[in-house]
C-alpha cells in the first residue's frame, strides 16, 4: 500500500503529509513536472501555496503535468485525497464539486477545530463511525466552501458531504458547515482541515490519522 504526495512549487505541507502517510503505509513524494504516478495507490495533494496562490488559489497547479495523471488515476477509480490547497486544486481541476472562497473574516485562520464525520462509508472514513467527532487544525485564507443550493442538495443526497464543522467550529462560514466533500463516486475527497497535522497527541491530536488509516484499510488485501 503506497501513498504518493505531490510536490508543487510552493507546497508547504508535503513532508508533513508524507510523515502522516508513513504511519499507515509507504509514502513518497511525486514531482509536479512528472506525468508518472510511479504506481502509487493513493495520491495526496498537499497543503501550501502552490504557485504562490497567484492568479487564484489552485488555478495554476491544475495545469501541472502531474495533474493529468491524477485525473486519469481518479477516472480509473483510484483514491485521491486533497488537503487544503490540495482541495482547492481538485476543485479547480473539476475533480470535486464546488469552490473555495476567501474566509468570511477575510483573514488567515489557524485553529484547532472539531469536525463531525457525516458519511463513514467512504475510503476516507471507514475507520470512523458516522457522528464521530475529530479534532483537527485548519489553517487557510481561502477555505469557505461554496456550491449552488441545488448542487448542495445533490451532494447531501449522494452522501458526498464527508465532514462537517461542528456547531461553533466553522472557521470561515462554509456553506452547510462543509469541511470536506467527495465526488459522486467517493474516490476523490477534498477537505480544508489538515489531518496530517493531527497524527500524534504530542502535537495536538491523533484524530486525523483515522482518515489515513481508512485509506490504508480501503486498499488492504481482503
Amino acid at each position, binding site marked *: 500500500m503506497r501513498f504518493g504526495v505531490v510536490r508543487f512549487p510552493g507546497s508547504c505541507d508535503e513532508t508533513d503529509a508524507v510523515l502522516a502517510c508513513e504511519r499507515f503505509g509507504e509514502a513518497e513524494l511525486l514531482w509536479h513536472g512528472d506525468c508518472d504516478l510511479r504506481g502509487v495507490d493513493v495520491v495526496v495533494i498537499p497543503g501550501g501555496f502552490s504557485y504562490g496562490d497567484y492568479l487564484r488559489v489552485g488555478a495554476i497547479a491544475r495545469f501541472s503535468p502531474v495533474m493529468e495523471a491524477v485525473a486519469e488515476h481518479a477516472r480509473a477509480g483510484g483514491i485521491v485525497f486533497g488537503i487544503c490547497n490540495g482541495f482547492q486544486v481538485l476543485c479547480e481541476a473539476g475533480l470535486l464539486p464546488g469552490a473555495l472562497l476567501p474566509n468570511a473574516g477575510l*483573514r488567515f485562520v489557524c485553529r484547532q477545530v472539531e469536525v463531525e464525520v457525516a458519511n463513514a462509508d467512504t475510503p476516507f472514513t471507514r475507520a470512523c463511525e458516522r457522528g464521530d467527532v475529530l479534532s483537527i*487544525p485548519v489553517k487557510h485564507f481561502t477555505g469557505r466552501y461554496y456550491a449552488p443550493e441545488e448542487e448542495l442538495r445533490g451532494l447531501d443526497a449522494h452522501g458526498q458531504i464527508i465532514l462537517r464543522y461542528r456547531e461553533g467550529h466553522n472557521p470561515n462560514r462554509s456553506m452547510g458547515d462543509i469541511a470536506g466533500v467527495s465526488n459522486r463516486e467517493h474516490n476523490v475527497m477534498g477537505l480544508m482541515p489538515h489531518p496530517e497535522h493531527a497524527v500524534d497527541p504530542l502535537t495536538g491530536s491523533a484524530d486525523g490519522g483515522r482518515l489515513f488509516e481508512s485509506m490504508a484499510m480501503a486498499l488492504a488485501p481482503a
Partner: protein
Amino acid sequence: MSAGAASAERLSEARALGLTDSEYELIVDKMGREPNGVELAVFSLMWSEHCAYKHSKKLLGRLPTEGPHLLMGPGENAGAVTVGNGLAIAFKVESHNHPSAVEPFQGAATGVGGILRDVFAVGARPIAILDSLRFGELSSGRSRYLLDGAVSGIGHYGNSIGVPTVGGEVYFEGPYEQNCLVNAMCLGIAREDRLIRSAAAGVGNLLVLMGARTGRDGIGGASVLASAELDSEDASKRPTVQIGDPFEEKRVMECCLELLDRGTLRSLQDLGAAGLSSSASEMASKGEVGLDIDVSRVPLREDDMEPFEIMVSESQERMLCVIEPEKLAELEEICERWEVRATAIGEVTESRRLRVLDGDEVVGDMPVDALVDDCPLYDLEPAAPSEQIYPAPPQVLDPSADAHETLLALLSSHNLASRRPLFEQYDSIVQSRTVRRPEDADAAVLQLAPDGGKGAIAVSIDGNGRRVACDPYTGTVEAVLECAANLACVGAEPLGLTNCLNFGNPEKPHVAWQLERSVAGMADVLRELGVPVVGGNVSLYNESGDGPIYPTPVVGMVGALPDAAVAPRSGFAREGDVVALVSSGVKLSLPGSELAKLRGDELPLGLPEVDVAAVRATLDAVRAAARGGGLNAVHDVSEGGVAVALAESCLAGGLGASVSLPDTGSESLFGEGVGRFLIAGESAAVAALGDRAAVIGMVGGGSLEIEGAGSWGLPELREKSGAFAQAFL
C-alpha cells in the same frame, strides 16, 4: 587630508547620501582619489549606521560571545548553537522598523523574508518564526493601520513559505506612535557539519547570483531609511521599501538547501540591506580575497538601470554564492528544477578589491578593507537625564478602582489581553514540530524531529520598553531574565541569545546613555546566566518629531529540553492541584508596571535593583521541577502581577482556582518584579521546590477567588481578555 581636495559637487552628493564631511574625506584618503558615483553609492551604504554599526560597535564588544554550546557567533548571517546529536540550531532576530512605519504590509513581510534568508544562508532549514512588535496606542487610527498591515504582512510571508510562526509579543505605547517596531526572529535546523559560512574562497571561483531579478526597489534603504530619523516626508520614502514575493523565496530556499545538501556551494550569502554591495564586500572581506562583479550580467527588471543602482538595489529574494567553475552545470540543473534564476556575475580574485565592471569597462574599484573595516567608529557621549524624558501615559483607570475592577481593566488592556486574535492569523504548526503552540505555554516548544523521538527546543522573545525607559540597566536585566524565565517554565535551559537593540538617535546624549546602560545590563546578566550572544541587530534613529521611542532591547533565546511531552503548560489543568507561588525574593512594586500605566502614573527614573544570582537559582529550580513531570502548570508572573497570572492560568486551562495571598494590597496583587512563578501540580511535586514555593490555594471551580480581594467568574474573565479582537475588526 592626504589626497586632493574634495570637489564641492561630490561632497554635497556625499552629504545627501548620509555621509559626514570627515567621513567623505576619509574615503578619499582610503581610495587615494575621489570616488566616482558608483563608488560613492557603495561607500555611503557600507558606511551607513545600518551596515557599519558605527555608533554601537564599540559597545557591542562588551557582550559575552563565548559559551559551551556556541557553534557560530556574531558576524555570520546567523549564529548557531549545538543541541546535541550533531544537530545545530541557527537563529537571529532583525528589525524592519522604518520600512514598516512607511509601508507596514511590505515592510513586515520583507522583514520576515530577510531573516529567513539569513538563516538558510548558513545552511539551516528555517523551522520557526517569532516576532516582536510595538505600536502606538490602539486608540490611534494610524496604530491600528500599522498593526493590521504588519500582522498581515508577517502572516503573508511566513504562512506562504511554510515556516510556522510559533510565538512573539506585541505592546502598545505612545512613544511608538510614529515609529513602530517590527522585529522578526527566525530559527533554523541543520546538521552541525552542514553549517556553511559566507567567506568567499578560491581565486578563480565563480560568483553566482540566484533568485529574483534586480529592480529599482529599496534603493538607499539602508542609509536614507534605516539610518535616519523618521519625518513628515515619509510617504515619499515608500519607493525605498522593498516588495516581497514569498513564492520566489520558497523556491530559492528549497533550491539553496538542495545545493547545500549536495555540497555544490563553497559559500553562501543573502542579499539584504545595501544589496550586492554589502553581500559581495562581506564575502570578500571574510575570505580575504577580491571580487569582480559585472553588472551587465545581472538580470534586471528594468533595462535602463545604472551600474550604481544595480549595486545598491535591495530587491528581495536574492542569494549570492561562490562555486567552483566545474560545478556550474550542476548548479544550473538544480536551479532549473526549482525554477530559480542563476547567473554567474563575477569571480573571486586575489586583489582584495571590489571591482565593478559594466561589460569591459571598470566602473568602480574599491579596496575591500576600506568598505568593510575602515568606517570610523564613534564613541557615544552619554549623559543621564536629570528627570524622566517620557511623558506620563494618559490615565484610563481611576486609581481608586477596587481589586475586582482593576483586574478586569488589566486583562482587557491592549498590552495584556489574549493575543489569540493575532496569532490565529499565523500558521503555527506547519513542519509538524510544534508541541506547545502560542498561549499553550510561556515558551513555544518544538520537537527536533518531526516524527517524534526525544530532544526538543524552546524559544521565546521578550522586551519591555517601558521598563527600560524607567531604568535602562535594570529594565534590560529584567527583559533577559523574563526570557530565561519563559524557557524555565517549559523546562528549557538557555543555550544562546540573539538581540535587537531598538533605540533612538545615538548622537543625542540621553539616547546614548540609554544604549550604554542597556548594553551594560545585558552584558552583566548574560555573564551571570552563562549565556552567549550569537548575533543580532541594532536599529538606531527610531524617533520622530515627538522624540525617541522607549529604548527597546528585544531578546530572543533558544533553550534545550530533554522531553517535550512533559513540558508544562501555562493553564491550570487538573481540579485539586495545589497552587503555589515561587519567588526569588525580588520585591513586587507598582512604579513602571502595567497598572501604573493604566493609572496614568509618571514613569519613575530607576527601578528596584535585581538580585540576578537569586533569580538564577530560582530559574534553575523551576526548570528542574518542570522537567520532573509532576507540575501541570507553570506560568511566569510578569505584566499585571500575580492576579493577572492567576487569571491567565485559569483562562488557559478553563478551570478556576481559590487562593489566599499573605497580603491583598495593590502591590501584592498587581505589582511587578522578575523571578516569580505560579505553579500547580500534585502536592509532592510542589513540595519538591522546598521553601521557594509558598502554597496559596487549589485549582477548581468555575471562578477565580482571591480571598479578601474578590471573585471573578471565568466567563467574565474570558470576555475581558478577548478585548484584543476589536483591534482586527
